[in-house]
């Protein structure tokens, strides 16, 4: 895992995320395929109108879990580099909540690793999303 550290970029940020930052981190001359997944805030969720989201993170543990995901992705998919950035605080419509960028020699690995990473992030990483609707708000996955 230590050897991978220079190939792993994990950040939890209170301000706007940058696709360019993630792209530049993973770009390198060994790779022909870069995949970026970008999670954005949408207005409609199951017929309800969202005004914005609020993300809270258990930052220290979230970073550890994100590093585990990154190391596992590098290992399983033979990636060169991976960057995972997650936003905290209030996030408006069409703004970016999360970016995952992966690079590998061949495209299939980069795409599949990215899908693995976002799926696992949503399952394991201690970050919580509060959805603000026109009429009220609730923590997603903890709605009574």
């Amino acid at each position: 895992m230590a050897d991978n550290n220079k190939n792993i970029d994990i950040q939890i940020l209170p301000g706007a995320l940058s696709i360019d930052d993630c792209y530049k981190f993973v770009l390198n001359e060994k790779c022909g395929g870069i995949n970026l997944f970008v999670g954005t805030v949408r207005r409609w969720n199951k017929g309800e109108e969202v005004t914005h989201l609020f993300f809270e993170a258990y930052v220290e543990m979230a970073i550890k879990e994100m590093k585990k995901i990154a190391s596992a992705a590098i290992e399983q998919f033979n990636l060169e580099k991976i960057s995972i950035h997650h936003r905290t605080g209030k996030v408006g419509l069409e703004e970016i909540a999360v970016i995952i960028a992966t690079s590998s020699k061949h495209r299939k690995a980069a795409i599949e690793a990215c899908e693995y990473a976002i799926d696992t992030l949503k399952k394991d990483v201690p970050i919580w999303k509060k959805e603000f609707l026109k009429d009220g708000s609730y923590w997603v996955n903890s709605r009574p």
Partner: protein
Amino acid sequence: MKVLCFGVAKDIVGGSEIILNKEAVITVADLKIYLNKSYPEFLKYKNYMVAVNQAYANDHATISSSDEIAIIPPVSGG
């Protein structure tokens, strides 16, 4: 024993941490029983996890006041 609270747990206990009246070593299962008794609203969210020293812990794990303990409601990042 200090317990960090996030997401809906913060709303239930009314703050970002709670101090439990327990100094002896207990298990995660004991902690959950205590929490459910002290804050019955937790019973609505039975599938919360507990993290010990920033890693998920199972019900059999033991905890003491020197550990960093956190209530982890169902996550919803991404």
